[in-house]
């Protein structure tokens, strides 16, 4: 009680690695929720005691009044920790959405979300897509400034002649020959070690 469990929730959130999500800790979350109910019950019973003694609620400042005050403060503290937990996770979810727009929620993310978070994930992705289609602007590309689509490459292994490229031109990739290719064309050969990118 008195905020200790609630603070564990926030500490767990803070210990997560920046930008990554941890599993939604529903047990601890529900425990803090039920603590709020408890604080509220105790607050109401103390208030009733003051009323039963026929005292004026507004002006009485006795032990029961201060007891009610402390339960109120604990409840507000718990609320802050619960909201901070959900709010900060929602921020991480939104940053993940930017990286994932256009594809479904990956399972390794989905299993970490509460049902409400999963719903929020889908809803918010939809909102962004709506916005983009209204503006006819794809915001999911160009996260990094664009560079020359062409790169200079050297052939490391005899790939042979008459290779058809994306702009359906053909090229002869003799060993050690140097070419100026579209990155998208060259990438497959580079990843297979048949070509290397020349730096400058």
């Amino acid at each position: 009680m008195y905020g200790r469990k609630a603070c564990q929730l926030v500490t767990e959130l803070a210990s997560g690695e920046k930008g990554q999500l941890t599993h939604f800790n529903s047990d601890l979350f529900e425990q803090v929720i039920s603590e709020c109910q408890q604080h509220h019950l105790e607050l109401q019973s103390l208030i009733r005691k003051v009323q039963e003694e026929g005292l004026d609620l507004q002006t009485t400042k006795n032990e029961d009044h201060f007891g009610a005050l402390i339960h109120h403060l604990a409840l507000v503290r718990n609320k802050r920790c619960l909201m901070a937990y959900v709010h900060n996770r929602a921020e991480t979810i939104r940053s993940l959405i930017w990286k994932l727009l256009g594809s479904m929620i990956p399972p390794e993310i989905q299993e970490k979300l509460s049902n409400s978070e999963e719903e929020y994930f889908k809803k918010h992705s939809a909102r962004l897509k709506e916005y983009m289609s209204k503006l006819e602007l794809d915001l999911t590309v160009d996260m990094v400034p664009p560079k020359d689509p062409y790169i200079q490459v050297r052939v490391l292994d005899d790939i042979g002649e008459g290779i058809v490229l994306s702009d359906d031109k053909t090229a002869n990739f003799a060993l050690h020959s140097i070419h100026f290719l579209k990155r998208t064309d060259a990438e497959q050969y580079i990843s297979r070690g048949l070509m290397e990118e020349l730096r400058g």
Partner: protein
Amino acid sequence: MASNLGGASISQTDDFETFTPTTDVEPLKRAWRNEKAAPEILPYEASLVGRIKEQIQAMEDSIEEYSRSGIDPLIVSLYQMDLDRIQFLLRSYIRSRLQKIEKYMLYILKSDELFRRLSKEEITFTDRCRHDMKKHFDESVLSKLPNNYQDVLKQSITSEEDDMVPEPPLDTFVVCKSKEYLEHIQLEDEEERASSRIEEPFEMEANVLHIIRYRPIKSLVESGRIDLL
């Protein structure tokens, strides 16, 4: 945007305005940098974005036509690079605005000044995002709390103000420079001036980098006298 400059007066500098081609790229780059560097959302550059989108459309059409009419593909790639650069600027500009809306949507909806800065589409986006977020908060937390504590703006019914709404950090420091010489910039806000904690009025030489707290220069950034970097 009629704005009093909070007492800052501009003295004419004689060095002649450096020639920059009258394209929309420079203004877009300025809008992009200001938006990314400012702690709060800035006015939407509606006409600039409109013009840029037209130019992008026109360039896309001509590139298609060039590549069909057998123009040297490497020249076509130069036009494509120019197009890619402008599209990056536009996308990054719009993205950084949306991310600010996501972060401070409750505050923006409460502040007329900021709300008026949104585009039509951004307003719809903000409303829908608030609806989704509130539903998410209600389902996860608020509906499960005792009444008197279920509000998303106030911690409890006894809270005097909306004490749950994150505000943009206007006291953060930003890197900036001014195109002209600016004097009498008041650095303290009213609260501090009221209790006579005055820093002497600040002058800014033209084109010299400064790091300044955003709040005092907020109106100068919005009126275009100071650029953020």
